[in-house]
Protein backbone atom coordinates (compact mmCIF):
# COMPACT_ATOMS: atom_id res chain seq x y z
CA UNK A 1 0.00 0.00 0.00
CA UNK A 2 2.82 2.34 0.84
CA UNK A 3 4.14 1.97 -2.67
CA UNK A 4 0.95 3.22 -4.31
CA UNK A 5 1.03 6.80 -5.53
CA UNK A 6 -0.90 9.30 -3.48
CA UNK A 7 -1.55 12.77 -4.87
CA UNK A 8 -3.83 14.41 -2.31
CA UNK A 9 -2.38 15.71 0.90
CA UNK A 10 -5.30 15.02 3.28
CA UNK A 11 -5.03 11.32 2.62
CA UNK A 12 -3.02 9.53 5.24
CA UNK A 13 -2.41 5.89 5.81
CA UNK A 14 -0.12 3.52 7.62
CA UNK A 15 1.27 0.08 7.14
CA UNK A 16 -1.40 -1.55 9.30
CA UNK A 17 -4.18 -0.80 6.87
CA UNK A 18 -5.34 2.44 8.44
CA UNK A 19 -6.25 5.19 6.02
CA UNK A 20 -8.10 8.48 6.27
CA UNK A 21 -9.15 11.35 3.99
CA UNK A 22 -11.13 14.54 4.10
CA UNK A 23 -13.34 15.91 1.35
CA UNK A 24 -16.06 18.48 0.79
CA UNK A 25 -19.37 17.25 -0.55
CA UNK A 26 -20.13 19.22 -3.70
CA UNK A 27 -23.12 17.35 -5.03
CA UNK A 28 -26.11 19.70 -5.14
CA UNK A 29 -28.46 17.46 -3.22
CA UNK A 30 -25.96 16.52 -0.57
CA UNK A 31 -25.67 12.93 0.43
CA UNK A 32 -29.06 11.34 0.69
CA UNK A 33 -31.20 8.58 -0.81
CA UNK A 34 -29.52 7.43 -4.00
CA UNK A 35 -26.04 8.87 -3.35
CA UNK A 36 -26.11 7.23 0.07
CA UNK A 37 -27.08 3.91 -1.47
CA UNK A 38 -24.17 4.21 -3.91
CA UNK A 39 -21.75 5.23 -1.18
CA UNK A 40 -22.66 2.51 1.31
CA UNK A 41 -22.75 -0.18 -1.35
CA UNK A 42 -19.26 0.78 -2.44
CA UNK A 43 -18.10 0.87 1.19
CA UNK A 44 -19.52 -2.57 1.80
CA UNK A 45 -17.61 -3.96 -1.18
CA UNK A 46 -14.42 -3.57 0.89
CA UNK A 47 -13.46 -5.90 3.73
CA UNK A 48 -12.08 -3.06 5.90
CA UNK A 49 -14.23 -1.00 8.26
CA UNK A 50 -15.37 2.35 6.87
CA UNK A 51 -16.36 5.22 9.12
CA UNK A 52 -17.37 8.79 8.43
CA UNK A 53 -17.28 11.98 10.45
CA UNK A 54 -19.29 15.07 9.58
CA UNK A 55 -18.01 18.64 9.95
CA UNK A 56 -15.44 17.82 12.59
CA UNK A 57 -18.08 16.52 14.99
CA UNK A 58 -15.71 13.90 16.37
CA UNK A 59 -18.53 11.38 16.05
CA UNK A 60 -17.58 8.50 13.77
CA UNK A 61 -20.46 6.70 12.08
CA UNK A 62 -20.49 3.39 10.26
CA UNK A 63 -20.01 4.29 6.59
CA UNK A 64 -21.53 0.99 5.55
CA UNK A 65 -24.84 1.86 7.24
CA UNK A 66 -27.26 3.81 5.10
CA UNK A 67 -29.36 4.47 8.17
CA UNK A 68 -26.43 6.23 9.85
CA UNK A 69 -25.51 8.10 6.67
CA UNK A 70 -29.02 9.47 6.20
CA UNK A 71 -29.22 10.30 9.89
CA UNK A 72 -25.96 12.27 9.57
CA UNK A 73 -27.75 14.85 7.41
CA UNK A 74 -24.88 15.35 5.00
CA UNK A 75 -25.49 18.23 2.58
CA UNK A 76 -23.69 20.28 0.02
CA UNK A 77 -20.69 21.91 1.63
CA UNK A 78 -20.37 19.33 4.37
CA UNK A 79 -16.77 18.43 5.20
CA UNK A 80 -16.65 14.67 5.25
CA UNK A 81 -13.84 12.71 6.87
CA UNK A 82 -13.66 9.10 5.78
CA UNK A 83 -11.46 6.59 7.54
CA UNK A 84 -10.89 2.92 6.88
CA UNK A 85 -9.18 0.22 8.88
CA UNK A 86 -8.24 -3.28 7.77
CA UNK A 87 -7.69 -5.03 4.50
CA UNK A 88 -7.60 -2.80 1.41
CA UNK A 89 -8.19 0.31 3.53
CA UNK A 90 -6.24 2.66 1.24
CA UNK A 91 -8.01 1.33 -1.82
CA UNK A 92 -11.38 1.84 -0.15
CA UNK A 93 -10.56 5.42 0.79
CA UNK A 94 -9.41 6.20 -2.75
CA UNK A 95 -12.54 4.70 -4.28
CA UNK A 96 -14.94 6.42 -1.86
CA UNK A 97 -13.21 9.75 -2.21
CA UNK A 98 -13.35 9.49 -5.99
CA UNK A 99 -17.05 8.72 -5.76
CA UNK A 100 -17.72 11.87 -3.74
CA UNK A 101 -15.65 13.88 -6.23
CA UNK A 102 -17.68 12.46 -9.10
CA UNK A 103 -20.84 13.64 -7.30
CA UNK A 104 -21.77 10.01 -6.65
CA UNK A 105 -22.14 9.31 -10.38
CA UNK A 106 -25.52 11.03 -10.24
CA UNK A 107 -24.98 12.65 -13.67
CA UNK A 108 -24.45 9.27 -15.26
CA UNK A 109 -27.60 7.92 -13.66
CA UNK A 110 -29.63 10.74 -15.11
CA UNK A 111 -28.63 9.54 -18.56
CA UNK A 112 -26.11 12.28 -19.29
CA UNK A 113 -22.49 11.59 -20.06
CA UNK A 114 -20.36 10.59 -17.13
Amino acid at each position, binding site marked *: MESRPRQEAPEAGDAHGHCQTEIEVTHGFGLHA*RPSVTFTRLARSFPCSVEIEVNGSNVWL*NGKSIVKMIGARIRRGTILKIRARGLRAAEAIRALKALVERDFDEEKKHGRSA
Partner: protein
Amino acid sequence: MAEALEIVGICASPGVAIGTVHLAADVTAETFAPFYTVAAEREKLRQAVGVAVTDLSALADRLDEESAGILDFQVEMLLDPALVEMAEERIVGGDGAALAWAGALDRYIAGIEEAPDEQLRARAVDVVDIRNRVLRALTGRPVEDFAPGSVFVGKDLEPSHFLAHDWSAGGGIVLFDGSASSHVAMLARSRGIPMVVATGRFEIGDGLRVLVDASDALVVIDPEDARIRKAKSRMASASPSAPAQPGGTVETADGVAIRLSAIINDRQELKATDPSSFAGIGLMRTEFLIASPADAFDEEKHYEVCRQALDWAGSAPVIVRMLDLGGDKTLPGLGAKKSESFMGVRGIRLLLALPELARVQARALLRAAAHGNLSVLLPMVTVPDELDSMRTIFEEELAVLVRRGVEARMPEIGMMVEVPAAALMLDRFSRSAFFSFGTNDLAQYLMAAARGDQSVAGLYEVAAPAVCRLIGQSVALAEAMKRPLGICGEMASEPRHVPALMAAGLRHFSVAPSRIADIRSAIGGSCSDGRAAAEKR
Protein backbone atom coordinates in the same frame (compact mmCIF):
# COMPACT_ATOMS: atom_id res chain seq x y z
CA MET B 1 -86.04 -37.06 22.86
CA ALA B 2 -82.80 -36.27 24.60
CA GLU B 3 -83.13 -33.81 27.40
CA ALA B 4 -81.97 -30.37 26.35
CA LEU B 5 -79.70 -28.63 28.80
CA GLU B 6 -80.63 -25.06 29.67
CA ILE B 7 -78.17 -22.62 31.16
CA VAL B 8 -79.16 -19.31 32.67
CA GLY B 9 -77.05 -16.20 32.28
CA ILE B 10 -77.63 -12.48 31.92
CA CYS B 11 -78.88 -10.86 28.75
CA ALA B 12 -76.25 -8.51 27.29
CA SER B 13 -77.89 -8.07 23.90
CA PRO B 14 -81.44 -9.26 23.19
CA GLY B 15 -82.53 -11.55 20.37
CA VAL B 16 -82.50 -15.19 19.42
CA ALA B 17 -79.76 -17.08 17.61
CA ILE B 18 -79.34 -20.70 16.64
CA GLY B 19 -76.03 -21.98 15.43
CA THR B 20 -73.23 -24.44 15.91
CA VAL B 21 -70.90 -23.82 18.81
CA HIS B 22 -67.50 -22.30 18.30
CA LEU B 23 -65.74 -23.05 21.56
CA ALA B 24 -62.93 -20.54 22.04
CA ALA B 25 -59.70 -21.56 23.67
CA ASP B 26 -59.21 -19.79 26.97
CA VAL B 27 -57.07 -16.73 26.58
CA THR B 28 -55.20 -16.74 29.83
CA ALA B 29 -52.14 -14.92 31.04
CA GLU B 30 -50.16 -18.07 30.25
CA THR B 31 -51.31 -18.09 26.63
CA PHE B 32 -50.34 -14.47 26.33
CA ALA B 33 -47.06 -14.68 28.17
CA PRO B 34 -44.84 -16.00 25.36
CA PHE B 35 -46.30 -13.32 23.16
CA TYR B 36 -44.73 -10.58 25.23
CA THR B 37 -41.24 -11.94 25.56
CA VAL B 38 -38.41 -9.89 24.16
CA ALA B 39 -37.36 -12.76 21.92
CA ALA B 40 -40.85 -13.15 20.46
CA GLU B 41 -41.29 -9.43 19.81
CA ARG B 42 -37.83 -9.23 18.25
CA GLU B 43 -38.61 -12.19 16.01
CA LYS B 44 -41.92 -10.65 15.02
CA LEU B 45 -40.21 -7.43 14.04
CA ARG B 46 -37.53 -9.24 12.03
CA GLN B 47 -40.18 -11.20 10.18
CA ALA B 48 -42.16 -8.05 9.42
CA VAL B 49 -39.04 -6.34 8.09
CA GLY B 50 -38.38 -9.42 5.95
CA VAL B 51 -41.90 -9.28 4.53
CA ALA B 52 -41.49 -5.57 3.79
CA VAL B 53 -38.21 -6.19 1.97
CA THR B 54 -39.73 -9.00 -0.12
CA ASP B 55 -42.74 -6.87 -1.02
CA LEU B 56 -40.61 -3.88 -1.93
CA SER B 57 -38.23 -5.91 -4.07
CA ALA B 58 -41.13 -7.51 -5.93
CA LEU B 59 -42.63 -4.07 -6.47
CA ALA B 60 -39.31 -2.62 -7.65
CA ASP B 61 -39.02 -5.36 -10.28
CA ARG B 62 -42.16 -4.11 -11.96
CA LEU B 63 -41.12 -0.45 -12.11
CA ASP B 64 -38.96 1.68 -14.36
CA GLU B 65 -35.40 2.36 -13.26
CA GLU B 66 -36.06 5.78 -11.76
CA SER B 67 -38.97 4.62 -9.56
CA ALA B 68 -37.21 1.40 -8.71
CA GLY B 69 -34.29 3.49 -7.47
CA ILE B 70 -36.48 5.03 -4.78
CA LEU B 71 -37.65 1.63 -3.61
CA ASP B 72 -34.08 0.44 -3.77
CA PHE B 73 -33.25 3.06 -1.19
CA GLN B 74 -36.01 1.78 1.06
CA VAL B 75 -34.79 -1.80 0.68
CA GLU B 76 -31.26 -0.71 1.59
CA MET B 77 -32.60 1.03 4.68
CA LEU B 78 -34.51 -2.06 5.77
CA LEU B 79 -31.57 -4.38 5.16
CA ASP B 80 -29.37 -2.15 7.32
CA PRO B 81 -29.34 -3.76 10.77
CA ALA B 82 -29.06 -0.29 12.34
CA LEU B 83 -32.78 0.35 11.93
CA VAL B 84 -33.90 -2.89 13.53
CA GLU B 85 -31.35 -2.41 16.31
CA MET B 86 -32.82 0.97 17.21
CA ALA B 87 -36.21 -0.69 17.59
CA GLU B 88 -34.78 -3.65 19.47
CA GLU B 89 -33.39 -1.36 22.14
CA ARG B 90 -36.97 -0.36 22.83
CA ILE B 91 -38.18 -3.98 22.76
CA VAL B 92 -35.65 -4.79 25.45
CA GLY B 93 -37.05 -1.80 27.33
CA GLY B 94 -40.47 -3.47 27.36
CA ASP B 95 -42.20 -2.15 24.24
CA GLY B 96 -44.13 -4.44 21.91
CA ALA B 97 -42.76 -4.83 18.37
CA ALA B 98 -45.11 -2.32 16.74
CA LEU B 99 -44.64 0.31 19.42
CA ALA B 100 -40.87 -0.16 19.42
CA TRP B 101 -40.66 0.13 15.66
CA ALA B 102 -42.91 3.17 15.42
CA GLY B 103 -41.12 4.87 18.30
CA ALA B 104 -37.64 4.29 16.93
CA LEU B 105 -38.58 5.31 13.40
CA ASP B 106 -40.46 8.41 14.49
CA ARG B 107 -37.45 9.58 16.42
CA TYR B 108 -35.21 8.94 13.44
CA ILE B 109 -37.65 10.71 11.12
CA ALA B 110 -37.77 13.70 13.46
CA GLY B 111 -33.96 13.89 13.24
CA ILE B 112 -34.07 14.01 9.44
CA GLU B 113 -36.83 16.60 9.51
CA GLU B 114 -34.66 18.93 11.57
CA ALA B 115 -32.12 18.97 8.75
CA PRO B 116 -31.40 22.47 7.45
CA ASP B 117 -31.55 21.18 3.88
CA GLU B 118 -34.90 21.05 2.10
CA GLN B 119 -33.86 18.17 -0.14
CA LEU B 120 -32.71 16.13 2.77
CA ARG B 121 -35.84 16.87 4.76
CA ALA B 122 -37.85 15.54 1.84
CA ARG B 123 -36.23 12.13 2.38
CA ALA B 124 -38.22 11.85 5.59
CA VAL B 125 -41.18 10.83 3.45
CA ASP B 126 -39.32 7.73 2.34
CA VAL B 127 -38.60 6.77 5.90
CA VAL B 128 -42.26 7.37 6.81
CA ASP B 129 -43.11 4.99 3.99
CA ILE B 130 -40.70 2.40 5.36
CA ARG B 131 -42.15 2.79 8.83
CA ASN B 132 -45.70 2.25 7.60
CA ARG B 133 -44.84 -0.70 5.40
CA VAL B 134 -43.30 -2.61 8.28
CA LEU B 135 -46.17 -1.67 10.56
CA ARG B 136 -48.61 -3.08 8.05
CA ALA B 137 -46.55 -6.26 7.93
CA LEU B 138 -46.72 -6.39 11.72
CA THR B 139 -50.40 -7.19 11.72
CA GLY B 140 -50.08 -8.66 15.14
CA ARG B 141 -51.44 -11.93 16.33
CA PRO B 142 -53.88 -13.23 13.74
CA VAL B 143 -57.27 -13.59 15.36
CA GLU B 144 -58.66 -17.06 15.40
CA ASP B 145 -61.82 -16.42 13.41
CA PHE B 146 -64.78 -18.78 13.35
CA ALA B 147 -67.39 -19.83 10.81
CA PRO B 148 -70.00 -17.14 10.02
CA GLY B 149 -73.33 -17.83 11.66
CA SER B 150 -71.90 -19.85 14.53
CA VAL B 151 -72.30 -19.12 18.22
CA PHE B 152 -69.17 -17.98 20.01
CA VAL B 153 -68.82 -19.68 23.40
CA GLY B 154 -65.91 -18.76 25.65
CA LYS B 155 -64.66 -17.03 28.74
CA ASP B 156 -64.63 -13.60 27.16
CA LEU B 157 -64.50 -11.96 23.74
CA GLU B 158 -62.22 -9.06 22.81
CA PRO B 159 -63.82 -6.15 20.94
CA SER B 160 -61.24 -6.43 18.14
CA HIS B 161 -62.07 -10.12 17.79
CA PHE B 162 -65.75 -9.25 17.58
CA LEU B 163 -65.07 -6.67 14.90
CA ALA B 164 -62.84 -8.94 12.86
CA HIS B 165 -65.66 -11.48 12.57
CA ASP B 166 -68.26 -11.47 9.81
CA TRP B 167 -71.62 -11.26 11.59
CA SER B 168 -73.69 -10.79 8.44
CA ALA B 169 -74.79 -14.45 8.61
CA GLY B 170 -76.03 -13.93 12.18
CA GLY B 171 -74.83 -15.98 15.11
CA GLY B 172 -74.63 -15.26 18.80
CA ILE B 173 -72.33 -14.91 21.78
CA VAL B 174 -72.28 -16.80 25.07
CA LEU B 175 -69.69 -15.81 27.66
CA PHE B 176 -68.88 -17.72 30.84
CA ASP B 177 -67.84 -14.44 32.46
CA GLY B 178 -68.36 -11.09 30.81
CA SER B 179 -70.69 -8.28 31.66
CA ALA B 180 -73.64 -6.57 30.06
CA SER B 181 -71.82 -3.25 30.31
CA SER B 182 -68.64 -4.35 28.58
CA HIS B 183 -67.68 -2.81 25.27
CA VAL B 184 -68.23 -6.00 23.38
CA ALA B 185 -71.78 -6.12 24.78
CA MET B 186 -72.28 -2.60 23.56
CA LEU B 187 -71.04 -3.61 20.10
CA ALA B 188 -73.30 -6.66 20.08
CA ARG B 189 -76.30 -4.50 20.92
CA SER B 190 -75.51 -2.02 18.19
CA ARG B 191 -75.23 -4.86 15.66
CA GLY B 192 -78.21 -6.78 16.99
CA ILE B 193 -76.17 -9.88 17.85
CA PRO B 194 -77.85 -11.89 20.65
CA MET B 195 -75.50 -12.22 23.61
CA VAL B 196 -75.74 -13.92 26.99
CA VAL B 197 -73.07 -13.34 29.63
CA ALA B 198 -72.17 -14.62 33.09
CA THR B 199 -73.40 -18.16 32.52
CA GLY B 200 -70.58 -19.61 34.56
CA ARG B 201 -68.41 -22.28 33.05
CA PHE B 202 -70.29 -25.21 31.48
CA GLU B 203 -69.21 -28.20 29.44
CA ILE B 204 -70.03 -28.02 25.77
CA GLY B 205 -68.56 -29.59 22.67
CA ASP B 206 -67.34 -27.71 19.63
CA GLY B 207 -69.84 -28.00 16.77
CA LEU B 208 -72.93 -28.79 18.88
CA ARG B 209 -76.13 -26.95 18.03
CA VAL B 210 -77.09 -24.31 20.53
CA LEU B 211 -79.96 -21.88 20.96
CA VAL B 212 -79.17 -18.46 22.38
CA ASP B 213 -82.44 -17.06 23.65
CA ALA B 214 -80.87 -13.86 24.88
CA SER B 215 -84.13 -12.07 25.58
CA ASP B 216 -84.79 -14.76 28.21
CA ALA B 217 -81.09 -14.86 29.22
CA LEU B 218 -81.09 -18.58 28.33
CA VAL B 219 -78.70 -20.84 26.48
CA VAL B 220 -80.17 -24.16 25.35
CA ILE B 221 -77.76 -26.88 24.29
CA ASP B 222 -79.02 -29.21 21.58
CA PRO B 223 -82.54 -27.70 21.67
CA GLU B 224 -85.71 -29.43 20.48
CA ASP B 225 -87.29 -28.02 17.33
CA ALA B 226 -90.36 -26.93 19.26
CA ARG B 227 -88.18 -24.87 21.59
CA ILE B 228 -86.51 -23.17 18.63
CA ARG B 229 -89.87 -22.39 17.03
CA LYS B 230 -91.14 -20.90 20.26
CA ALA B 231 -88.15 -18.60 20.63
CA LYS B 232 -88.23 -17.57 17.00
CA SER B 233 -91.92 -16.75 16.97
CA ARG B 234 -91.59 -14.63 20.09
CA MET B 235 -88.67 -12.79 18.55
CA ALA B 236 -90.65 -12.05 15.38
CA SER B 237 -93.54 -10.50 17.30
CA ALA B 238 -91.32 -8.54 19.66
CA SER B 239 -89.42 -6.44 17.15
CA PRO B 240 -91.70 -3.82 15.64
CA SER B 241 -88.89 -1.71 14.27
CA ALA B 242 -90.07 1.87 14.12
CA PRO B 243 -89.50 3.57 10.79
CA ALA B 244 -86.52 5.89 10.63
CA GLN B 245 -87.40 9.56 10.72
CA PRO B 246 -85.31 12.15 9.02
CA GLY B 247 -83.83 15.16 10.76
CA GLY B 248 -81.14 15.59 13.32
CA THR B 249 -83.37 17.34 15.84
CA VAL B 250 -86.53 16.37 17.65
CA GLU B 251 -88.83 18.57 19.72
CA THR B 252 -89.90 17.84 23.24
CA ALA B 253 -93.57 18.01 24.12
CA ASP B 254 -93.04 21.62 25.23
CA GLY B 255 -91.28 22.56 22.01
CA VAL B 256 -87.60 22.52 23.00
CA ALA B 257 -85.30 21.31 20.22
CA ILE B 258 -83.02 18.38 21.13
CA ARG B 259 -80.16 17.58 18.82
CA LEU B 260 -79.52 13.93 17.99
CA SER B 261 -76.15 12.75 16.74
CA ALA B 262 -74.95 9.26 15.99
CA ILE B 263 -72.48 7.13 17.90
CA ILE B 264 -70.35 5.24 15.41
CA ASN B 265 -68.04 2.39 16.36
CA ASP B 266 -66.80 1.17 13.02
CA ARG B 267 -67.07 1.42 9.28
CA GLN B 268 -69.89 -1.09 8.98
CA GLU B 269 -72.10 1.01 11.23
CA LEU B 270 -71.36 3.98 9.03
CA LYS B 271 -72.59 2.08 6.00
CA ALA B 272 -75.66 0.75 7.78
CA THR B 273 -76.79 4.11 9.19
CA ASP B 274 -78.81 6.73 7.35
CA PRO B 275 -77.13 10.12 7.82
CA SER B 276 -80.38 12.00 7.29
CA SER B 277 -81.66 10.82 10.70
CA PHE B 278 -78.81 12.49 12.56
CA ALA B 279 -77.12 15.82 13.10
CA GLY B 280 -73.77 14.28 12.24
CA ILE B 281 -71.64 12.11 14.47
CA GLY B 282 -71.46 13.00 18.16
CA LEU B 283 -68.98 10.28 18.98
CA MET B 284 -66.84 8.24 16.69
CA ARG B 285 -64.88 5.72 18.71
CA THR B 286 -61.56 5.01 17.06
CA GLU B 287 -60.34 2.21 19.31
CA PHE B 288 -62.65 -0.29 17.63
CA LEU B 289 -61.45 0.61 14.16
CA ILE B 290 -58.11 -0.96 14.83
CA ALA B 291 -57.55 -4.66 15.10
CA SER B 292 -53.87 -4.73 16.01
CA PRO B 293 -51.15 -2.49 17.42
CA ALA B 294 -49.82 -2.08 13.92
CA ASP B 295 -53.15 -0.61 12.83
CA ALA B 296 -52.98 1.84 15.70
CA PHE B 297 -49.80 3.26 14.22
CA ASP B 298 -51.16 3.30 10.67
CA GLU B 299 -51.76 6.98 10.00
CA GLU B 300 -53.41 6.30 6.65
CA LYS B 301 -55.94 3.99 8.23
CA HIS B 302 -56.91 6.60 10.82
CA TYR B 303 -57.10 9.21 8.10
CA GLU B 304 -59.25 7.12 5.76
CA VAL B 305 -61.78 6.33 8.46
CA CYS B 306 -62.09 10.02 9.33
CA ARG B 307 -62.58 10.92 5.68
CA GLN B 308 -65.29 8.26 5.36
CA ALA B 309 -67.05 9.65 8.41
CA LEU B 310 -66.86 13.20 7.01
CA ASP B 311 -68.24 12.02 3.68
CA TRP B 312 -71.06 10.26 5.51
CA ALA B 313 -71.95 13.37 7.51
CA GLY B 314 -71.79 15.85 4.63
CA SER B 315 -71.65 19.33 6.16
CA ALA B 316 -72.75 18.09 9.60
CA PRO B 317 -70.19 17.93 12.41
CA VAL B 318 -68.17 14.82 13.09
CA ILE B 319 -66.64 14.43 16.54
CA VAL B 320 -63.85 11.88 16.55
CA ARG B 321 -62.60 10.60 19.87
CA MET B 322 -58.93 9.77 20.11
CA LEU B 323 -57.95 6.19 20.94
CA ASP B 324 -59.46 5.29 24.28
CA LEU B 325 -57.37 2.25 25.13
CA GLY B 326 -56.82 0.75 28.54
CA GLY B 327 -59.49 -0.46 30.94
CA ASP B 328 -61.22 -3.27 29.08
CA LYS B 329 -60.11 -2.06 25.65
CA THR B 330 -56.63 -3.29 25.01
CA LEU B 331 -54.44 -4.36 22.15
CA PRO B 332 -51.55 -6.77 22.54
CA GLY B 333 -48.67 -4.65 23.73
CA LEU B 334 -50.80 -1.53 23.99
CA GLY B 335 -52.51 -0.65 27.21
CA ALA B 336 -52.56 -4.32 28.06
CA LYS B 337 -49.83 -4.83 30.56
CA LYS B 338 -49.93 -2.12 33.17
CA SER B 339 -53.34 -0.65 32.68
CA GLU B 340 -55.74 -3.49 33.21
CA SER B 341 -57.34 -1.39 35.87
CA PHE B 342 -60.00 1.15 35.04
CA MET B 343 -58.16 3.38 37.50
CA GLY B 344 -54.84 3.04 35.69
CA VAL B 345 -53.20 4.33 32.55
CA ARG B 346 -56.01 4.60 30.03
CA GLY B 347 -57.54 7.12 27.66
CA ILE B 348 -55.54 10.34 27.44
CA ARG B 349 -53.17 9.09 30.13
CA LEU B 350 -52.12 6.28 27.81
CA LEU B 351 -51.92 8.59 24.79
CA LEU B 352 -49.63 10.98 26.65
CA ALA B 353 -47.56 8.05 27.92
CA LEU B 354 -47.18 6.85 24.30
CA PRO B 355 -46.69 10.13 22.44
CA GLU B 356 -45.65 8.24 19.29
CA LEU B 357 -49.14 6.80 19.17
CA ALA B 358 -50.82 10.13 19.93
CA ARG B 359 -48.81 11.85 17.21
CA VAL B 360 -49.83 9.31 14.55
CA GLN B 361 -53.48 9.89 15.29
CA ALA B 362 -53.04 13.64 15.67
CA ARG B 363 -51.54 13.84 12.19
CA ALA B 364 -54.40 11.83 10.70
CA LEU B 365 -56.97 14.05 12.45
CA LEU B 366 -55.22 17.28 11.42
CA ARG B 367 -55.17 16.11 7.81
CA ALA B 368 -58.80 14.97 7.86
CA ALA B 369 -59.89 18.25 9.49
CA ALA B 370 -58.93 20.07 6.30
CA HIS B 371 -61.77 18.25 4.53
CA GLY B 372 -64.78 18.85 6.72
CA ASN B 373 -66.41 19.77 9.98
CA LEU B 374 -64.25 17.61 12.23
CA SER B 375 -63.66 18.05 15.96
CA VAL B 376 -61.52 16.01 18.27
CA LEU B 377 -62.65 14.57 21.58
CA LEU B 378 -60.14 13.55 24.24
CA PRO B 379 -60.99 10.58 26.45
CA MET B 380 -60.60 10.38 30.25
CA VAL B 381 -59.33 13.92 30.82
CA THR B 382 -58.88 14.44 34.57
CA VAL B 383 -56.87 17.68 34.89
CA PRO B 384 -56.39 20.70 32.55
CA ASP B 385 -52.71 19.83 32.05
CA GLU B 386 -53.64 16.75 30.04
CA LEU B 387 -55.72 18.83 27.66
CA ASP B 388 -52.88 21.34 27.26
CA SER B 389 -50.30 18.63 26.59
CA MET B 390 -52.43 17.14 23.85
CA ARG B 391 -53.05 20.57 22.33
CA THR B 392 -49.28 21.03 22.18
CA ILE B 393 -48.91 17.73 20.34
CA PHE B 394 -51.51 18.86 17.81
CA GLU B 395 -49.78 22.22 17.37
CA GLU B 396 -46.40 20.59 16.84
CA GLU B 397 -47.72 18.05 14.37
CA LEU B 398 -49.62 20.75 12.48
CA ALA B 399 -46.34 22.64 12.08
CA VAL B 400 -44.65 19.50 10.76
CA LEU B 401 -47.44 18.87 8.25
CA VAL B 402 -47.42 22.45 7.05
CA ARG B 403 -43.66 22.27 6.63
CA ARG B 404 -44.10 19.10 4.57
CA GLY B 405 -46.67 20.88 2.44
CA VAL B 406 -49.48 18.59 3.58
CA GLU B 407 -53.00 20.01 3.72
CA ALA B 408 -54.08 20.22 7.36
CA ARG B 409 -56.22 22.27 9.74
CA MET B 410 -56.38 22.61 13.51
CA PRO B 411 -59.68 21.08 14.64
CA GLU B 412 -61.60 22.16 17.72
CA ILE B 413 -60.49 20.03 20.65
CA GLY B 414 -62.94 19.12 23.36
CA MET B 415 -62.98 16.64 26.19
CA MET B 416 -64.98 13.76 27.56
CA VAL B 417 -66.39 14.42 31.01
CA GLU B 418 -66.25 10.95 32.52
CA VAL B 419 -64.02 11.39 35.55
CA PRO B 420 -65.94 12.83 38.52
CA ALA B 421 -63.13 15.28 39.34
CA ALA B 422 -63.31 16.77 35.85
CA ALA B 423 -67.09 17.05 36.05
CA LEU B 424 -66.89 18.87 39.38
CA MET B 425 -64.12 21.21 38.21
CA LEU B 426 -65.41 21.85 34.69
CA ASP B 427 -64.81 25.61 35.00
CA ARG B 428 -61.06 24.94 35.13
CA PHE B 429 -61.09 23.51 31.61
CA SER B 430 -61.46 26.81 29.80
CA ARG B 431 -59.27 25.54 26.95
CA SER B 432 -61.73 22.80 26.06
CA ALA B 433 -63.80 23.84 23.04
CA PHE B 434 -66.70 21.61 24.06
CA PHE B 435 -67.68 18.91 26.54
CA SER B 436 -69.23 15.50 26.15
CA PHE B 437 -70.43 13.43 29.10
CA GLY B 438 -69.42 9.80 29.09
CA THR B 439 -71.87 8.24 31.46
CA ASN B 440 -70.53 4.68 31.35
CA ASP B 441 -67.32 5.63 33.09
CA LEU B 442 -68.85 8.43 35.14
CA ALA B 443 -71.27 5.85 36.55
CA GLN B 444 -68.61 3.30 37.45
CA TYR B 445 -66.39 5.90 39.10
CA LEU B 446 -69.26 7.51 41.01
CA MET B 447 -70.52 4.16 42.24
CA ALA B 448 -67.06 2.65 42.74
CA ALA B 449 -68.42 -0.32 40.79
CA ALA B 450 -66.34 -1.64 37.87
CA ARG B 451 -68.32 -1.96 34.65
CA GLY B 452 -67.03 -5.39 33.83
CA ASP B 453 -67.57 -6.89 37.26
CA GLN B 454 -70.83 -8.78 37.32
CA SER B 455 -70.80 -9.05 41.12
CA VAL B 456 -71.30 -5.29 41.49
CA ALA B 457 -73.56 -4.87 38.44
CA GLY B 458 -76.44 -4.10 40.80
CA LEU B 459 -74.71 -0.95 42.00
CA TYR B 460 -73.73 0.10 38.50
CA GLU B 461 -77.35 -0.29 37.44
CA VAL B 462 -78.63 2.26 39.98
CA ALA B 463 -76.06 4.95 39.22
CA ALA B 464 -78.47 7.13 37.22
CA PRO B 465 -79.63 9.52 39.98
CA ALA B 466 -76.07 10.31 41.06
CA VAL B 467 -74.92 10.68 37.46
CA CYS B 468 -77.80 13.02 36.65
CA ARG B 469 -77.16 15.19 39.71
CA LEU B 470 -73.50 15.56 38.80
CA ILE B 471 -74.37 16.30 35.16
CA GLY B 472 -76.83 18.96 36.31
CA GLN B 473 -74.07 20.79 38.20
CA SER B 474 -71.65 20.49 35.29
CA VAL B 475 -74.19 21.76 32.78
CA ALA B 476 -74.48 24.96 34.81
CA LEU B 477 -70.69 25.36 34.76
CA ALA B 478 -70.46 24.72 31.00
CA GLU B 479 -73.25 27.19 30.28
CA ALA B 480 -71.48 29.87 32.29
CA MET B 481 -68.41 29.19 30.11
CA LYS B 482 -70.59 29.32 26.96
CA ARG B 483 -69.26 25.97 25.79
CA PRO B 484 -71.42 23.47 23.92
CA LEU B 485 -71.97 20.20 25.68
CA GLY B 486 -73.62 16.90 25.00
CA ILE B 487 -73.80 13.34 26.18
CA CYS B 488 -72.53 10.22 24.47
CA GLY B 489 -72.75 7.52 27.12
CA GLU B 490 -75.06 4.55 26.93
CA MET B 491 -77.49 6.27 29.28
CA ALA B 492 -78.37 8.59 26.39
CA SER B 493 -79.42 5.56 24.36
CA GLU B 494 -81.74 4.33 27.13
CA PRO B 495 -85.24 5.80 26.71
CA ARG B 496 -85.96 5.44 30.44
CA HIS B 497 -83.07 7.76 31.34
CA VAL B 498 -83.79 10.41 28.72
CA PRO B 499 -86.26 12.50 30.77
CA ALA B 500 -83.86 12.81 33.70
CA LEU B 501 -81.00 13.75 31.40
CA MET B 502 -83.11 16.48 29.81
CA ALA B 503 -84.07 17.67 33.26
CA ALA B 504 -80.36 17.90 34.05
CA GLY B 505 -80.13 20.38 31.20
CA LEU B 506 -78.80 18.32 28.30
CA ARG B 507 -79.97 19.30 24.81
CA HIS B 508 -77.61 17.28 22.65
CA PHE B 509 -77.69 13.49 22.70
CA SER B 510 -75.41 11.12 20.87
CA VAL B 511 -77.12 7.77 20.55
CA ALA B 512 -76.57 4.32 19.11
CA PRO B 513 -78.19 4.26 15.64
CA SER B 514 -80.22 1.17 16.53
CA ARG B 515 -81.93 3.07 19.39
CA ILE B 516 -82.75 6.27 17.55
CA ALA B 517 -86.46 5.57 17.06
CA ASP B 518 -87.02 4.80 20.76
CA ILE B 519 -85.06 7.88 21.81
CA ARG B 520 -87.06 10.10 19.49
CA SER B 521 -90.32 8.92 20.96
CA ALA B 522 -88.98 9.24 24.51
CA ILE B 523 -87.99 12.85 23.85
CA GLY B 524 -91.23 13.63 22.04
CA GLY B 525 -93.20 12.20 24.94
CA SER B 526 -91.47 14.31 27.58
CA CYS B 527 -91.17 17.93 28.46
CA SER B 528 -87.72 19.50 28.57
CA ASP B 529 -87.85 19.48 32.37
CA GLY B 530 -88.16 15.69 32.28
CA ARG B 531 -91.84 15.41 33.18
CA ALA B 532 -94.02 13.22 31.00
CA ALA B 533 -96.01 15.21 28.45
CA ALA B 534 -99.30 14.17 30.04
CA GLU B 535 -98.28 15.47 33.48
CA LYS B 536 -97.78 19.02 32.24
CA ARG B 537 -100.61 21.45 32.93
